[in-house]
């Protein structure tokens, strides 16, 4: 017998007692995950900052200036196709190798949504967000999130996302707690995460 047949046979034998599959009560999906009276967008900004990401809030007309300020003079900036935002001097990704990406200082992208409950941004790596390596190799990630993209909780995010697309959930810059369980920012992913939150 193949390993597949053997493992499946072992599972069926192990379940010979035909256990009941318990019902799952999904009432949790209807509960508000946020503290009473919290504003979704304010809380998102607060919790993103809580994990030592930098948050800038601006209006749509101020966006280009805010992004330029967030880049803080980084000389070599990368943008994905379809960013729909003018970033002067930026290189547009054209199948750059990992080594090419490693030579760049910063990347500017958009996101698919933000989660207030956890201060998380979610990338699904379509137009404006770029393939996964883009937001990983450069040391600075400037991410533009519109206020209307922020959802209250993880439950809302999971319901809204397309599982077939690759996803990266980002909560603050790269970090580790591996030495004495003290949190230290900055290991392999971008050491600086700058979220530009566009109101209105």
């Amino acid at each position, binding site marked *: 017998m193949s390993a597949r047949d053997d493992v499946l046979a072992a599972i069926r034998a192990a379940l010979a007692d035909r256990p009941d599959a318990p019902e799952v*009560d999904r009432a949790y999906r209807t509960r508000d995950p946020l503290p009473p009276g919290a504003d979704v967008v304010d809380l998102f900004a607060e*919790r993103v900052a809580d994990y030592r990401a930098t948050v800038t809030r601006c209006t749509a007309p101020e966006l280009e200036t805010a992004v330029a300020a967030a880049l803080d003079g980084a000389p070599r900036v990368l943008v994905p196709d379809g960013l729909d935002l003018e970033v002067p001097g930026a290189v547009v990704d054209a199948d750059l190798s990992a080594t090419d990406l490693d030579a760049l200082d910063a990347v500017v992208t958009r996101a698919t949504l933000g989660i207030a409950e956890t201060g998380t941004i979610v990338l699904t790596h379509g137009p404006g967000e770029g393939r996964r390596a883009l937001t990983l190799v450069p040391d600075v990630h400037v991410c533009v999130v519109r206020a209307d993209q922020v959802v209250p909780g993880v439950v809302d995010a999971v319901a809204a996302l397309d599982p077939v697309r*690759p996803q*990266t959930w980002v909560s603050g810059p*790269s970090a*580790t707690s*591996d030495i*004495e*369980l*003290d949190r230290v920012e900055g290991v392999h992913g971008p050491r600086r995460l700058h979220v530009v939150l566009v109101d209105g």
Partner: protein
Amino acid sequence: MGRTFVGMPPFPTAARTALADTRLRHNLAHATGTIRAKRATVVAEVEDWEDLRGQAAAVKDATLARLDEHLLTLEASLTARGATVHWARDAAEACAVVAEVARTHGVDEVVKVKSMATQEIGLNDALAAQGIAAWETDLAELIVQLGDDLPSHILVPAIHRGRAEVRDIFRTRMAAAGRPAPTDLTDDPAELAGAARLHLREKFLRARMAVSGANFAVAETGTLVVVESEGNGRMCLTLPEVLVSVVGLEKVVPTFADLDLFLRLLPRSSTGERMNPYTSTWSGVTPGDGPQEVHVVLLDNGRTRALADPVGRPTLRCIRCSACLNVCPVYERVGGHAYGSVYPGPIGAVLNPMLRGVGTDPVTDSLPYASTLCGACGDVCPVAIDLPGLLVHERIRVVDAHRADPRPKPEALAMRAAAWALGDARRMSLAERASGLAGRAWRGRGMPGGRRALSWLPFPGSRWTGARDLPVPPAESFRAWWRRTGRDEGTGR
């Protein structure tokens, strides 16, 4: 070859060595104390935490009850999205699959995402035996690998190391594995993390193949999920051309929507954060983004053995958060090495006997006793595994497995003697008189509450008093006192 757990002594012996190591105890007390406080803060934020635990347990139980169906769905979804699915009965088969993929591509090194499944199957040594170097890229795993050490915690395998030790390991060992540590490296954790960043970056950029595990595997869509902090996972899952993921059978969840429970429970339980810095999901091959050849190895290695025990089955709910380790008074003092497995702590004390079976390996058989049954582990488990109950269940299985031993254990002999003495009123009365004499002969030392106890007995009593006091038997038994004070059994006055 790295060090292995093979040949380690049973828990009581290993624990004695660990307890004598004051630096280890200091490191563990500091680290577990820190993480306990962080967890408690973020768990308190979630008002319906208890309900979420219950529902997550229900999702896992419902999935396990139809595990064959969900795995077939997972296999079909993965295949439809361009992944190759392999099945492995045991560690050797799983390692052989990974080695074969490496051989096909002619690679002599792979980068690894931290993964309990690959630790469990001893993948690094298996690959080394085939001339393939497996580089651990998680910071703690790197510390363990460079230090030729063993993991001692599920989340933070180098939890037993303090910052000064980490600096020494980096200074002396990094050069042999690639880019050396900076010569002026201090023991500041941020600097140590920076050294790891530089050391591993060259490996990420040149690696052609990566090996990962998965925290969850979604049957409906073939989506694998890796939850991490540092970005080393993203590097491995994104940059190489070939990705092999070794996934335990129990990692399957039916739908993507089910993740809305686990992505809330896991980070808060594990690192004590509202959300971990990075979570990656991928479904087979995404054209133009990430590895273009994706393999998934579905690993049994004892899981069907655990599944076959209706009482022990909930052990397979475990999502490897390690909250039970961090609250365990035994783990906090002894550390992970004494458990002789990559799965230490309360979950290890249950999971190892489940996966390996009982009655053959003295180390495994000793694990269910590595607990005070205080119940803290059960209280924090995000998938509501009744760990204290299962520890007792495993003790029963161990005792049952040894009933037919030609040389019974001292405990079994003592219990047999007790059954003989207590099973008959006359014999019991003789035993009471003997223990009364002993109680008068031995003074012992005072204990809180006025009771007296003996701290030392000659062999074989020393087996008991080596770790515990023995209360001095009362000089007079209850029945003797009742008779002496003239109380008559019939009147009850």
